[in-house]
């Protein structure tokens, strides 16, 4: 019979259709879901297969013919696909749709439609068989295509089923269309384009909405792709697919009016994205010294790198301070103010003129340097300068206030951000796990550092084990407590001793100063400086020795060390300030005398000239000859500049001698020395993080203090930081060895910040004190002639603002208004503080609860696990008891196997029998797919446990058997 051949083919399609599920639309929906899950795996597999096929067709000659035939087939199928799509998407499809809309209600017609689709499929069945040889890929493709075709035809009904499905289908359309694209090159793109152009016109508004959502989803996917834990290949493929999807449907979205706008929007977002990316690239390229710091980090661990990051941060702050002072004070004065030599304060006095250009004088910031924009004294008290009336004194004052305000803002903001970041992870519940999984510093790339790290990790584990073992007995804790208290006591003694020493020396030096410095030796003259630097050198060492008593974790130890050296340096700084205050007072006494003398001198001058010719204009005296006051502000500025310079020099020299020379000596003298220099006493130096950080902080403090009286200070500091960045980077890489106990400097950044804040506060105190209490010099600086420096505000208010403003201001500054305001602020602060406290408490409480819950869960789970174990054992026991009844069991097993065989026979018979009626009538697809027989055999087994296994066994056989038969 000719029907026989048809039978087999029908069989095949049966199974295929079973997979594709075209017959029942509701089931179709479910299966689609199922497919979606499987698709990923299938697709990748298929792609790989395709690539392999391509490669093989290129390389192996023998298989070429075969592959050619395959490609032929593929092309044929593609053509067919195209044709089919054309059919559906073209006029015919439209007609059919119209037909459908007419015959929507009548079910019988629909059945006819169904049959039509089936006919279509039937045509393709033969080819589908061929495809099944080639592999699953084409099969899946074809199936999907079929589905789409049928789906398109029956769109109307599907609409009723829900729009969600459509969205899914759309996605699938894309996936299927992008699938051949990856395997087959250019040709398919046309198809894809056709696809994209035709489809959106068929869409309804809701569908558009859905499509839009899908596009947005894809966009989101593209953005979040980098955070997905997928292999790169998958990422790239998904990226390409979703980009294609977005590209294809973005343009189609929106109709009529909205369309252009939408396209424009899309274009702009694309441009914006590109710009953002470029900007991001630019930004990362702009971060200075990134590579250097990374390199250091890889060699010395993150604690050393944290110093350099801190240095860079300081540099950025100083950059802004420099911009403020340079742009708003120095440049305007230099360009628009009166030129050099026009008035006494802008001229080098006659007595100093001879040596004003000597290098020694300039190095000390005397001579021409003193009478320049670098210092306070040079600025004129003219209210407005230049053609656009730049308010110089006001600008000077505001810049001075602004630098301090800006610094406060930046430091506090950085602190707050750091505090937010370090808010988590302060409990100690995962001690060992953390040690195990997070102790390695993945940035280490230097063998020595790595060795040290290994050693430190081992010791930390040993310590933890010891702690764990000895947590019950606390006698050791008492010892460490005692030692810590002792260490702190010793440190306090040290600090007090050094403080007294400095006090003593300063008092003595004041006595010497009263006597006149010329009568004393070099030591007595420089006593204060020498004592201070000696203390600064030896005290940290002493603290280091003491801190070994305490046995802290190195991170904690570093903080203690930092705190102690901080206290020491603070003492030094304040003695310096006290000495400076004394000098200011001396200068002011001198000033009074000079002021008196000047009036006398002027009077004599006028008297002398007046006697000869009273109407003649006053004699022009060269500004260099005019007697002038000592100008204490410039003196203060000079002192600070000198201090900075000498500090910088000592830092660099100690760097060169202490690190570089030592390293050179150790390196080259090692060959001819009696002991091993590298391993023994001098060895190479370590990078001293704490000392360097403190140096940086104190340096910054001096900048803040002195910047008001010497506008050049930020510039100088910028230079210094720039040089020290390079110098220290080089020194670290060239002549330092990694620290013995490498640790991560995670939390200490905020510690630096806290110290910086304290220093900022302490350094602004004296500056503010001098500004507020001491009247400015009478003949130099922008505030000369005023009673106090801040009078400049009052003056500006009176003369530059309308009258009502100054009135309002005077009312506002009335104590009756200011006091309540301050009170309100205090209340607000109190309120915020108390709420934050309560939040903190709540946080701790919640943490506790969480921990409790965790422990409870642990207990519960453990109990459950125990119970399960018990049950298992019981089951085993019972199993061994029932071993006697094994014979019975065997019997039952045999019986089951018999059942299976029967079932299989049944199945085959079904397959054999079933299609025969289908030759005449197309309907009998249903009986085959009818799960009836399966139900029947399930019914045969009384034991439901057996069902799944059997089910799985039988199904693949059903699939495979026919295709095997055919060959």
């Amino acid at each position, binding site marked *: 019979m000719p029907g026989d051949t048809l039978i087999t083919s029908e069989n095949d399609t049966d199974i295929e259709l079973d997979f594709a599920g075209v017959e029942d639309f509701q089931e179709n929906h479910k299966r689609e879901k199922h497919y979606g899950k499987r698709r990923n795996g299938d697709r990748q597999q298929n792609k790989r297969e395709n690539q392999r096929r391509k490669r093989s067709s290129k390389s192996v000659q023998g298989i070429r013919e075969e592959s050619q035939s395959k490609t032929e087939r593929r092309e044929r199928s593609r053509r067919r696909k195209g044709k089919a799509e054309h059919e559906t998407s073209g006029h015919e499809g439209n007609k059919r749709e119209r037909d459908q809309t007419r015959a929507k209600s009548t079910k019988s017609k629909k059945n006819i439609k169904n049959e039509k689709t089936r006919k279509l499929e039937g045509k393709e069945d033969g080819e589908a068989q061929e495809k099944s040889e080639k592999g699953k890929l084409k099969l899946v493709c074809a199936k999907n295509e079929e589905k789409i075709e049928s789906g398109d035809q029956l769109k109307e009904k599907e609409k009723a089923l829900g729009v969600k499905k459509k969205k899914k289908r759309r996605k699938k359309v894309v996936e299927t269309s992008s699938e051949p694209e990856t395997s087959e090159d250019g040709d398919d793109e046309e198809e894809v384009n056709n696809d994209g152009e035709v489809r959106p016109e068929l869409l309804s508004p809701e569908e558009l909405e859905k499509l839009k959502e899908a596009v947005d989803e894809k966009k989101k996917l*593209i953005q979040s*792709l*980098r*955070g*997905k*834990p997928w*292999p*790169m*290949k998958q*990422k*790239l493929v998904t*990226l*390409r697919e979703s980009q294609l999807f977005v590209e294809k449907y973005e343009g189609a979205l929106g109709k009529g009016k909205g369309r252009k706008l939408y396209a424009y929007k899309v274009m702009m977002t694309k441009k914006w994205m590109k710009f953002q*990316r470029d900007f991001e*690239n630019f930004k*990362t*390229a702009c971060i200075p010294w990134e590579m250097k710091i990374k390199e250091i980090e*890889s060699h010395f661990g*993150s604690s050393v790198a944290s110093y350099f990051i801190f240095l860079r941060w300081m540099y950025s702050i100083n950059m802004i301070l420099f911009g403020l002072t340079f742009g708003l004070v120095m440049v305007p004065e230099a360009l628009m103010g009166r030129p050099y030599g026009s008035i006494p304060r802008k001229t080098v006095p006659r007595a100093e003129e001879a040596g004003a250009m000597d290098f020694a004088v300039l190095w000390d910031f005397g001579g021409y340097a003193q009478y320049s924009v670098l210092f306070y004294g040079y600025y004129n008290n003219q209210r407005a300068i230049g053609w656009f009336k730049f308010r110089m004194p006001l600008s000077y004052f505001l810049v001075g206030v602004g630098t301090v305000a800006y610094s406060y803002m930046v430091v506090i903001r950085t602190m707050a951000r750091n505090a937010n970041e*370090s808010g988590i*992870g*302060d*409990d100690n*519940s*995962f*001690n*060992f*796990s*953390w*040690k*195990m*999984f*997070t*102790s*390695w510093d*993945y940035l*280490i*790339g*230097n*063998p020595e*550092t*790595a060795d040290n790290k*290994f050693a430190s*990790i*081992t010791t930390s*584990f*040993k310590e*933890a*084990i010891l702690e*764990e073992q000895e947590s019950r007995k606390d006698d050791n804790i008492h010892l460490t407590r005692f030692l810590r208290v002792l260490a702190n006591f010793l440190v306090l003694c040290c600090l007090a001793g050094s403080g007294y020493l400095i006090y003593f020396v300063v008092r003595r030096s004041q006595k010497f100063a009263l006597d006149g410095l010329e009568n004393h030796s070099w030591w007595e003259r420089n006593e204060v400086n020498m004592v201070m630097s000696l203390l600064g050198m030896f005290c940290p060492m002493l603290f280091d020795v003491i801190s070994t008593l305490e046995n802290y974790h190195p991170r904690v130890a570093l903080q203690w060390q930092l705190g102690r050296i901080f206290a020491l340096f603070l003492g030094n700084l304040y003695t310096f300030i006290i000495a400076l205050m004394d000098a200011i007072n001396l200068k002011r006494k001198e000033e009074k005398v000079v002021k008196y003398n000047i009036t006398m001198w002027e009077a004599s001058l006028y008297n002398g000239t007046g006697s000869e010719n009273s109407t003649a204009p006053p004699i022009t005296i060269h500004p260099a000859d005019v007697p002038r006051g000592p100008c204490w502000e410039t003196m203060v500025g000079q002192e600070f500049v000198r201090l900075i310079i000498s500090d910088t020099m000592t830092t660099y020299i100690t760097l060169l001698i202490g690190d570089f020379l030592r390293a050179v000596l150790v390196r080259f003298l090692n060959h001819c020395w009696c002991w091993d220099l590298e391993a023994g006493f001098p060895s190479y130096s370590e990078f001293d993080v704490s000392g360097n950080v403190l140096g940086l902080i104190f340096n910054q403090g001096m900048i803040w203090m002195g910047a008001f009286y010497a506008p050049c200070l930020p510039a100088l500091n910028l230079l210094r930081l720039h040089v020290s960045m390079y110098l220290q980077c080089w020194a670290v890489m060239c002549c330092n060895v990694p620290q013995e106990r490498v640790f*991560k400097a*995670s*939390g200490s950044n905020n510690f630096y910040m806290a110290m910086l804040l304290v220093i900022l506060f302490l350094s602004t105190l004296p500056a503010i004190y001098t500004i507020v209490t001491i009247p400015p010099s009478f003949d130099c600086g922008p505030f000369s002639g005023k009673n106090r420096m801040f009078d400049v505000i009052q003056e500006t208010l009176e003369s530059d603002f309308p009258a009502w403003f100054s009135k309002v201001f005077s009312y506002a500054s009335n104590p009756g208004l200011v006091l309540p305001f301050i009170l309100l602020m205090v209340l607000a602060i109190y309120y915020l503080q108390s709420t934050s406290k309560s939040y903190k408490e709540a946080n701790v409480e919640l943490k506790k609860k969480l921990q409790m819950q*965790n422990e409870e*869960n*642990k207990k519960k*789970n*453990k109990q*459950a*696990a125990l119970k399960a174990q018990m049950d298992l054992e019981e089951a085993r026991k019972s199993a061994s008891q029932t071993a006697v009844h094994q014979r019975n069991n065997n019997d039952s097993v045999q019986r089951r196997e018999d059942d299976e065989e029967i079932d299989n026979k049944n199945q085959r018979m079904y397959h054999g029998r079933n299609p025969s009626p289908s030759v005449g009538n197309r309907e009998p697809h249903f009986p085959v797919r009818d799960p009836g027989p399966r139900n029947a055999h399930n019914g045969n087994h009384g034991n439901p446990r057996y069902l799944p296994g059997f089910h799985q066994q039988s199904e693949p056989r059903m699939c495979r058997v026919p295709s095997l038969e055919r060959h």
Partner: protein
Amino acid sequence: MGNKQTIFTDEQLDAYQDCTFFTRKEILRLHSRYHELAPHLVPMDYTNEPDCKLPLALIVDMPELKENPFRNRIVESFSEDGMGNLSFNEFVDMFSVLSEMAPRELKAIYAFKIYDYNVDNYLCKEDLEKTLNKLTKEELTPEEVELVCEKAIEEADLDGDNKLSYTDFENMISRAPDFLR
């Protein structure tokens, strides 16, 4: 005559930038590093995506990984075949995850993979022992190792099965102060 060799097309570079945390320059730098590892194997021209893999031994020798006790595991867990042969794609992927811009969650996922020596999706005691021995260069006594592993599991195990699943691991590591800082 300015004959600058093109290593990637612009589309490729864009795609890499979308898939990783790197900028254009960094990707090119990565390629040059990859090329340096085996100049005779790796082509300079990557525009047509050549199929080329470098063995584990070459990659482990990079200065970035050389001192890392987990270098073999890192490379293995990023390779597709699990044997440590890395294509350029996987190479970029590895450094993208290890870079400092990668988010905590992603790092946690890969960290788990790295510590999971026998690839059974659980950190069992053997995994922990191996980790610990690598971390301390086997300087702890077996008893100490035993104790530490037991303590670690006891601390982090939430469901009482005596091994750490990913959820346990994630829960533990997300609170660690030293992780990703």
